[in-house]
């Protein structure tokens, strides 16, 4: 494997093209996925303005929205630190920060469950704002859940000592995905909680 790779890289050099490493390939693949998914979120977010304009119901719990955002931002720091730790061969650190990220993910999920519980009364899925609210948070939450699952697998492999400096793609990939989930929320949060004016909306408004 290593030998043929060497020959291959050598051929590339002689014939004037670039040999890509498998790490580059994985990174590119993940970025393509992220670009694709970003298109989905674009459609999602623009439909909110199309379906329910810019107004938001006064029943939204502003403190909760802010708290959810804070949790997700904090978790992106912990994801960042796990990647840094892994790249320096600090397995213990990587494990710790992955675990913290997972916990933050669960706290976020708890917040969403509470929020949904309240929202069911104030603006149910069948109402104008409720339609977009539940769609946006619902699809974002599936991303959070898949991110948690990904991190859990990576944690397990880190615990078995499979990562070290120069080979920690698992940690890097999971962290990148987690950052993307955070990035999507950066747009979803103002779209749902901040834009427009708070108005009174009935359960069917």
């Amino acid at each position, binding site marked *: 494997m290593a030998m043929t790779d060497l020959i291959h890289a050598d051929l590339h050099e002689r014939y004037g093209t670039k040999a890509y490493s498998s790490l580059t390939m994985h990174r590119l693949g993940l970025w393509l996925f992220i670009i694709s998914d970003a298109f989905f979120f674009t459609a999602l977010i623009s439909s909110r303005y199309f379906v329910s304009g810019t107004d938001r119901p006064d029943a939204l719990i502003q403190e909760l929205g802010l708290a959810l955002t804070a949790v997700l931002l904090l978790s992106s720091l912990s994801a960042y630190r796990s990647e840094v730790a892994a790249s320096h061969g600090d397995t213990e650190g990587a494990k710790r920060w992955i675990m913290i990220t997972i916990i933050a993910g669960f706290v976020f999920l708890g917040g969403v469950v509470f929020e949904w519980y309240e929202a069911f009364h104030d603006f149910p899925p069948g109402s104008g704002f409720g*339609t977009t609210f539940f769609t946006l948070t619902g699809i974002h939450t599936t991303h959070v859940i898949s991110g948690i699952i990904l991190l859990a697998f990576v944690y397990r492999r880190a615990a078995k000592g499979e990562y070290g400096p120069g080979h920690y793609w698992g940690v890097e990939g999971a962290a990148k995905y987690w950052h993307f989930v955070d990035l999507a929320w950066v747009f979803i949060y103002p779209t749902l909680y901040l834009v427009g004016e708070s108005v009174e909306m009935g359960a069917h408004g």
Partner: protein
Amino acid sequence: MTALKPLGRAILFALIGFLIGAGLSAALVEAAGRDEMKEPIIAGGYMFALIGWLFGVGVWGSWVREWFGATVKPFHIEGWGRYLGFSTDHKVIGVQYGVTTIVIFLLAGALALLMRIELADANSTLLSRTDYNTVMGLHGIMMIAVAVAALMGGFANYVMPLMIGADDVAFPRLNALSFWIVPPVAVLLILTPLFGGMDTGWTGYPPLSSQGPTGNLLFLMAFTTFGLSSILGGLNFLATIITMRAPGMTWSRIPIFVWAVFAASLISLTATQFVAYALLMVIFERVFGMHFFDGTIGGDAILFEHVFWFYSHPAVYVMILPAFGIELEILSHFARKPVFAYKWVVRAFFSIVGLSFVVWAHHLFTSGMSSELHGPFMVLTELISIPTGVVFLAAVGTIWRGRLWLKTPMLFAMGVIANFLIGGLTGLYVADVVTDLNFQDTYFVVAHFHYTIVGGEIFALMGAIYYWYPKITGRMYSERLGRIHFIGMMVLYNVTFIPMFIVGAQGMNRRVADYPAEFENLNMFITVSSLLLGLAFIPFVYNMVNSWIRGRKAGDNPWGARTLEWQTTSPPPEENFETQPVVVEDPYGYGDPDAKHFEFPSGSGHVAEPAGGDD
């Protein structure tokens, strides 16, 4: 027997998955006190069934096991059995896609003939109106799926890695996954008539699609699933073309078909997310009782059309770009001349990709969209004719004063030039607001898009099949049957579809089972010629099957072509090339005896027959 094991396991897991999913959803529905809702149960069951199917067919054994720290058991079977499992060889996957899409193509073609028989006279005779709509919708969506997947899933998969001198695609397991997502799509579509059918046609516009029978739900889920497959395929091809080109294969040396796949993949990767969302919105309306399209609570049915066409217009370029690539490839090899204006063609491809994202609303001229948008979208749409015209001129320039070798693939490629000219020119009439207000929803539109998709893409698909058949099967098809197929298809195709422009211009609506009696004569004519057109496919199917079994050995490079896929055995070994080829020049140096596209530097490589220097 072992060959059937993966499929059997997949079906078993799918059934178990369905029961689990349906059970969970039923419990949820009951907990919510909404016992009357059946569709959440079907949707939940389907989601789990899909996962079960994929796990059973091999995602578990050759992939997910790894995440649990267990060793994977890659699928490996020799012989025919390898087509029935989770093979990660791009050549196997290409054949799987190819055969599947051709079977679906023939089925959907049969549905079209059924519609034509119904349309032979002005009243509903054979089919009830609802049945007619279901048949029409299924024909539409199956053909769209074929058009999206046959060239990209089938030929791009098989040929593109060979053309760039790679040993596989960038993510082989993902590639297998994108294929195995497709069979559940077919199952859902086949089940649709049993659940009340669907009235919407392949575009699935709400509110009809969110209120009609459960058949609509199956259609929506099938289309969404298919989109997923298309996205993953596009991702894989982009990563492959960027990172896996052979040494020396610089960007200006890659074959034009590879550029076309690159451009089309950009669209699959991004725009497809929009159709997924459009369909999901309708699914959410049906399953969760949401309201996106209800004007009384702030929603708007036009939202669907915007999101839907934001994908579905670019999607027509997912169909036609690879077709352009194949057309130019074949024209160049059989005219023994370089692709004319290669760099301009590449630029044109990317202009088409860019423009295709800003023209979607030409499908909404009559939908009640704000009329300030009409002008801009008309102009933007007509702008696309410029890069499309560049590709057309490049095709003509490539064969201009060449010595044409009129083998079957070449005949089909030249058919593409002629047919697409008609398709493209009539596009202008429907892109122009004033004329479209009359033509929208008439047979004129039907004729237009059949000229682009059938006359353009399907003709290119047929050309591709004949061109690469010797490479894929190692055997030569019968040239005589091939020519009979071409002549029959070319003549009868035009005879069938030209009259549709006329009835359309006279005002006959599309998507109807009965129509004013004044159109009866022309429709009878169309029906008869369409049935004959169906017969033209008999020599094709016979030729394909028969030659695969007892055709004569084709040799490595029967066309004397220069691109890399011909510089290995037919069919190629699993690793594609015994030694790594390196590229020294572009592949189109026909006419120059010293030109060479590639070399095998280590010396020992497989030496094919001399490539292309024979002119």
